């Protein structure tokens, strides 16, 4: 799952996947603005076949949290 999320973030934010770490967030990734956040959510929903709630979307504030939320949803 980690690798899939990295690949998606890499595509959406147009950065190499190996530059993404646990703490990668809107503060460290230049292209992580509100529009690309929408693109990230849509891409993750498609990839993992899930539907996030409003709260989950606002909580996805860095790579580690995204993975955590996805793990909760999938378990």
């Amino acid at each position, binding site marked *: 799952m980690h690798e899939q999320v990295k*690949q998606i973030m890499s*595509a959406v934010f147009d950065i190499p996947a190996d530059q993404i770490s646990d703490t990668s967030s809107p503060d460290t990734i230049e292209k992580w603005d509100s529009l690309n956040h*929408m693109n990230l959510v*849509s*891409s993750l929903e*498609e*990839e993992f076949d899930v539907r996030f709630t409003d709260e989950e*979307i606002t909580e996805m504030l860095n790579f580690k949290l995204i993975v955590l939320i996805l793990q909760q949803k999938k378990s």
Partner: protein
Amino acid sequence: MIDLKFSEIIKQNAALGNALEGGYEIGVLSNIIVSQIKPILEYNLRTQGIPANCIIGDYDNILQDAVSMSKMNAVLIFWELANWVDGFQYRSNLLSDDQTEEYIARFKSEIDYVLSHLKDTPLIIINKFSTLAFNQFAIGEDNFDRICETLNAYLKTKSASNIVVVDTSKVISQLSVERAISFRDYYSSKALYTVDFLKHYTQFITPVISTINGKRKKAIIFDCDNTLWEGIIGEDGIDGIKMSASSPKGVVFEEVQFLAKKLAADGILVCLNSKNNPGDIDEVFSNHSDLSLTNDEVIVKKINWDKKVKNLADISEELNIGTDSFVFVDDSDFEINLVNQYQPEITTIQVPKEKYLYPALIRRHLNLFYSPDRTKEDKARVKMYQQQKEREEKKAAFENIDEYLASLDLQVDIFVDKIELVPRLAQLTQKTNQFNLTTRRYTESEMLSFTKSDNYLVFAFGVKDKYGDFGITGLSVVELKGTNAVIDTLLMSCRVLGRNIEQQFLDEIIKALATKGVDTVRAEYCRTQKNDQVSDFYDKLGFVLQKADGPRKEYTISVPAYQNHSLTYIAINHA
């Protein structure tokens, strides 16, 4: 594209974007958030060779953006009735009649404002207003529905050659409201439509943009056995094949033949490419009582035991249109795979194993032949190719080409600044790829301003011969600059190639320019992927090359030095 994941589209689109130059600019005007359409639409067009650049307007700034984006190649308008006024889907139902009228009047004037500012934009794609997202379960009509209907009726009265109205309910119906609409994102950020919807929507409208970029499909080529009829002539015999609605197995094939007949009536070239004995197919076409398609509707028949890929290349040569404008239909995996592999530019349709899905599959592809308004020339095209067949047969009987051309009784009508021809001339600039020296695409309004301007002369010609009338098939736009003239555009439809009409046409242009006091004519050739055949056109006519700069070559000729061709077999009339 539909099956590709959104993140994959974003990634591949970014890669394509870096490789492309220039740009076909599409402005997106909206009062909701649809920014996710950008990578999807760009990707879908870029993979077709259209270097699309999508510019998302500001949120709820349709009126302002109509002014600032009017110079773009196309605009796309997402005007959501529910968000025209905040919460209109519920507020509208408590309005008095007077208040309703006031809102309708205001919306109409906003529509007028937007469309009038975009009147010179070559293409406006605007969605029909819809209440479907909110009212899908309502039996009766509410005021929201009635306002929606009134505005749609109003939009219909605004029809113009550059406006395409899209029925989004057709797109939503491909998915269901549940998959097309995201209330979560609508209430949090005014993003009403899902990525899934935007993919299907993009797929739906792409043919409109492809057509205006000269990428429309022009021919459909059918295999015969198990494609035009059920059964195999070689095994079932001519009497054993089925294609009539009165037989359970034939019914879908009758429908497909009628779909093909309708395409032929609309000017699409229907051809055959089949491994069979030619005599058997002739026999079916002359004598089979269940055949709906007729000999006249089929332009080229390649019935032989050659490779189908070769036959397709031969058809392309015979019709003088590229294989990229072909759709090929066959029942065999083997044949379809070969074409996909060797001629990937051809769209292929494989007859489905469940035959009852076949007519629907063909219908799904009909948008590839989409044309906004069929001009007289489109409809006459099939007839013209039939006459062409007769000419080709005659040609074989002559010793030399001049003798043959003389036998045709060619008549060329020359028109100058003729306003009635403007729609056709604009269409020619948009569709002509091969015999086109500069490939500049013009809209009707641009062509109209050239025609009216004192600084430009717009020459056009029509061609007739003893077999038939080709209609208006060539034009030139010339800019006058005192004693200089610049040939901005010179093009000719490939239907009239090989008759030296272009030489005679240029004679007439130069003569007309001489009477205007022009002493030097400048001209240029701009290379594209398709116009190689005219790369030395000006060299052959004695123009002097001044500068060759990458894909562009610039020429001049002094008017007194120009050698008239005075071809005796072409009669010129100044209309």
